[in-house]
């Protein structure tokens, strides 16, 4: 892996200088335009999804709306796939990504992360009847993942003996699990916990896998004005326990009492 990492690092530099030809919008420019473009998921309830009326909803979206509101601009949501998040930022198709974006080293070379607002590690959900409770049990089995997620990266790197079945979208991946196309599905544990809660017959056999990671907003590499503003916003929101309120509004109805809010929520960018 280390040689590959070096290669990737070099590529990262090349890409960022190339991408540098295109200028990200500064905070000032965003204010002037009156809208901020925010990349969110549309199929990852309860974090980012579209409700029955076609309105964007979820934990990430509530934060996104608040961000826009405090900036005095309109939030314009751009639907993104997991795999599109970095390219979207690189090509300035969005100003900010608020799509359950786990902070990783590879990504940090391509984009700039702000302070985190959530904690995660990976979880694996499987049918209760054939519950998978350890990574070892996955050997030789088919694991569903979504392209471009930390789950994909983790299993590619650490468990090459697991057969991965990859989908472009979360919706497709969940459907594949429901249709029995794979033995289990892995993604952020918050995600699978929420999903298993509302899908009888499925259990999260592995609740925490890999390193505990954080989730943070991301901006175009070097777009400091916007990143600084977001950091400032995250800090000031701590005083009103904004993310606890967000949790209560969007996640608690799904998680109920099973999950401790402080295992998930990060206030003021400070990971406890």
């Amino acid at each position: 892996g280390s040689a590959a990492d070096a290669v990737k690092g070099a590529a990262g530099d090349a890409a960022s200088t190339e991408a540098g030809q295109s200028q990200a919008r500064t905070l000032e420019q965003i204010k002037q335009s009156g809208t901020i473009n925010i990349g969110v998921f549309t199929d990852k309830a309860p974090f980012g999804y579209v409700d029955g009326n076609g309105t964007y909803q979820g934990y990430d979206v509530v934060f996104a709306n608040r961000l826009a509101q405090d900036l005095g601009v309109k939030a314009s949501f751009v639907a993104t796939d997991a795999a599109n998040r970095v390219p979207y930022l690189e090509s300035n198709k969005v100003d900010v990504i608020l799509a359950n974006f786990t902070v990783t080293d590879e990504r940090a070379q391509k984009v700039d992360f702000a302070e985190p607002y959530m904690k995660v590690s990976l979880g694996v959900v499987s049918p209760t009847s054939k519950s998978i409770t350890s990574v070892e049990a996955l050997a030789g089995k088919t694991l569903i993942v979504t392209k471009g997620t930390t789950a994909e990266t983790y299993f590619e790197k650490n468990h090459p003996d697991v057969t991965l079945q990859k989908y472009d979208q979360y919706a497709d991946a969940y459907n594949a699990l429901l249709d029995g196309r794979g033995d289990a599905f892995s993604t952020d544990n918050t995600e699978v916990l929420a999903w298993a809660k509302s899908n009888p017959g499925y259990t999260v056999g592995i609740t925490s896998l890999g390193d505990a990671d954080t989730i943070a907003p991301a901006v175009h590499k070097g777009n400091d004005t916007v990143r600084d503003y977001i950091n400032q916003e995250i800090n000031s929101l701590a005083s009103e326990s904004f993310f606890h309120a967000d949790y209560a509004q969007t996640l608690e109805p799904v998680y109920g009492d099973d999950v401790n809010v402080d295992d998930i929520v990060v206030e003021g960018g400070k990971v406890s």
Partner: protein
Amino acid sequence: MDWGFIARYAPYYVLAAQVTLLISLSGIAVSVLVGILCSMVRHARIPVLRQVAAAYVELSRNTPLLVQLFFLYFGLPKLGIVWSPEACAIVGLGFLGGSYMAESFRSGLDSVASSQADAASVLGMTRVQSLRHVILPQALAVAVPGIVANVIFLVKESSVVSGIALADLMYLAKDLIGLYYDTTEALALLVVAYATILLPISLLGTLLERRLDHARR
């Protein structure tokens, strides 16, 4: 351009190209079968079957492969029918390609002047002999450009199967972009891979067309 990346991942593209080829060739084979069946049914004017074939052609030509695949892959399981991605891809490509192939075969058959059948008849040939020695060779010669175009079309369309978890070329490229964000390199390899598969087919088609030219007067 990051040559290290290219050197490292080119072998993966070779594997993915095999998937692309395998899926598209199987799909093409099914298309040809469906196409022959369909054009025969329409050529011979078999009552009910003819209407069924006509309806099939309309459905197949007026809906996108992606939707056909999603219906097969994600829709049908809700009826308890779970097909593997390979099966869905081959059925989907066959469903789509069948109508295109049928069209090519039909135009080939139609292009053979009726006087050819007459000529064969007055020479004492039976219907089967006439079909085998006179009609089909000519029909095929006329149909070849259309068939080659369909083959290219179907190999291209097969890129859509990446959406149902088949590890073809497109799937690999999307995956590499999502994993390592080396967009330029991943796409360059993708273009080279498709060109390597399709340029020879395209050239072969042109050659074949030229060789069969005398058959089309």
